[in-house]
């Protein structure tokens, strides 16, 4: 393994291909557009879950405030779309035409200054990345430079999620309050509510998710990826090997924040609204469970975990609403007590050896040199964890 450090092992490549096939071929064929749109909505949470794998699973930083970044991305997108649908003609019946309807309802007579730049799509797209990154940087720098970590970090990020939710709900004239920013229609004149648009947005979302997976894979396969694990397990040793640990943590926290924000923006586009119910404490900690169910060490697992939990949530809360909270609560306890490595852990211990055999058998037929190295990165640590 020391000489062969390629970007992806065979197993990992296979994993990415399977996810891509599922997203781009199987699901669009198997579902009508209503279900596919719902599936696309679930996938936007997967962005958050993948970020959490890097941040929590690999580097040991548990953020209970990822909804904040999901919300920041989503609100940036929603502000642009809202402004586009609030032309003076479309809002002629308001006492102040040309501003979003909820502002008019709250007796606001001019567009607030921080809404102005969101008239520009370029600015909006930049803001979706930059705003959460800067916000994460400020939180990260303040906390990690002072060595705040572990449960303290978790509690403080949770408090920040609470603060932002209260702020959004309280300032309804500027934010749309508890209803959020609704009734979003067009993007540069293109109606995002039609079936065609939903198909296109679904594919864009899928492509972005695969992009995020590949980006994460690059990070995990670099020395930085191994440093993340090192920081999680022996923070002091990393520091006394000449690394500035806080910079590593700030980086991975910002990285995860940007992923979440992209997910949030895609959520707004596909679902057509954004509200504080995706920002606060409860959604933020649910996003952690998506990641945990998939396996906190596996970026692909995070995608499957997100899909599975959300599918279960929709199914159960439709048929047995009382049971769902019991189920979700039980899930939290089970992934901690019974299977801490989630779906990917189960895959690694039961299915992976099988797949490995099939893959390497195929390989022996085509090329007879060098045996394949055991896979690492996506879930190799699971074996070590299990051995402890």
């Amino acid at each position: 393994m020391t000489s062969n450090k390629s970007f992806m092992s065979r197993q990992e490549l296979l994993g990415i291909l399977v996810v891509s096939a599922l997203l781009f071929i199987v699901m669009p064929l198997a579902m009508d557009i209503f279900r596919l749109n719902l599936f696309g909505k679930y996938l936007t949470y997967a962005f958050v879950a993948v970020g959490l794998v890097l941040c929590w699973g690999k580097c040991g930083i548990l953020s209970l405030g990822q909804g904040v970044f999901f919300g920041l991305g989503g609100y940036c997108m929603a502000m642009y779309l809202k402004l586009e649908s609030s032309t003076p003609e479309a809002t002629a019946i308001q006492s102040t035409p040309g501003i979003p309807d909820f502002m008019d309802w709250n007796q606001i007579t001019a567009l607030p200054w921080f809404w102005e730049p969101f008239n520009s799509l370029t600015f909006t797209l930049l803001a979706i990345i930059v705003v959460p990154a800067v916000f994460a940087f400020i939180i990260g720098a303040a906390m990690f430079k002072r060595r705040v970590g572990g449960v303290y970090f978790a509690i403080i990020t949770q408090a920040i999620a609470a603060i932002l939710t209260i702020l959004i709900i309280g300032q309804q004239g500027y934010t749309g309050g508890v209803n959020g920013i609704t009734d979003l229609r067009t993007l540069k004149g293109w109606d995002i509510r039609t079936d065609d648009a939903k198909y296109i947005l679904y594919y864009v979302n899928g492509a972005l998710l695969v992009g995020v997976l590949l980006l994460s894979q690059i990070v995990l396969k670099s020395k930085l990826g191994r440093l993340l694990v090192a920081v999680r397990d022996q923070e002091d040793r990393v520091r006394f090997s000449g690394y500035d640990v806080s910079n590593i943590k700030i980086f991975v926290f910002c990285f995860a924040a940007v992923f979440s924000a992209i997910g949030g923006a895609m959520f707004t586009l596909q679902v057509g609204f954004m509200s504080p119910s995706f920002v606060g404490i409860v959604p933020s900690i649910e996003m952690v469970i998506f990641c945990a169910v998939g396996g906190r060490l596996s970026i692909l697992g995070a995608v499957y975990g997100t899909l599975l939990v959300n599918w279960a949530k929709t199914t159960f809360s439709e048929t047995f609403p009382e049971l769902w909270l019991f189920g979700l609560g039980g899930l939290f306890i089970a992934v901690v007590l019974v299977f801490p490595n989630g779906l990917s852990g189960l895959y690694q211990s039961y299915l992976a050896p099988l797949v490995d055999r099939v893959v390497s058998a195929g390989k022996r037929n085509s090329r007879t040199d060098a045996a394949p190295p055991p896979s690492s990165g996506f879930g190799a640590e699971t074996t070590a964890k299990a051995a402890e």
Partner: protein
Amino acid sequence: MNTLNNNTDFLLSIENLTVSFDGFKAVDDLNLYVDENEIHVIIGPNGAGKTTVLDLICGRTRSTDGSIKFRNKELTSMREHEIVREGVGRKFQNPSIYEDLTVFENLELSFPRGRSVWGALTFQRDQDVKIRVHEIAEMVFLNELLDKQAALLSHGQKQWLEIGMLLIQDPELLMLDEPVAGMSVSERKQTAKLLNEITKGRSVMVVEHDMKFVEDIAHRVTVLHQGKILSEGSMAKVQADPNVIDVYLGH
């Protein structure tokens, strides 16, 4: 504080160093000097402040007062990773290695290149790295185990791995906290040999309880007691010092 600005020929000079934890002085007005190429051992009863002195030098604990100069550079105001980059390496009492990674990866992460976030992202495992890792692994008796996961090593092998992780950084001052604690007799002998080899061209500070081991390696010994120096000099001189005998055997 007229001594603070004076440059010295010593590699490391600690002057008037004091640290107090809520009034309790763990290290009290300490003066200590380490020469180039010297193996300096610190001994003393439990709670004498030995580990605290190492913590202070490497920046893990902040001093209340006094100065620590390494090649005439003040360390007390530097952050840990900056001190490491100046050339001070520190081994902890319990082996602190990355258990989830292989021996090779452990050594590679300690290789002094690509230490910024961007540097780590673009780090290439080139020929230089591989040669150096193999060289160090050979030195610390782990060249057969490079692909093994570090968690699976024996206790003694973990200690050696950590020493290897320090050696690959080629520090000018190496600080070892109880390097042979928990080792078998043969591992202990091997470690003494290892230390004698790696001290060529660098200074080493060792905190140790094992007197036989100290006798084997020490050029100079400092005995700490309640944060102060009780005695200093060669092992023979220290062992004959009535103050030392009193502290270890008396009460």
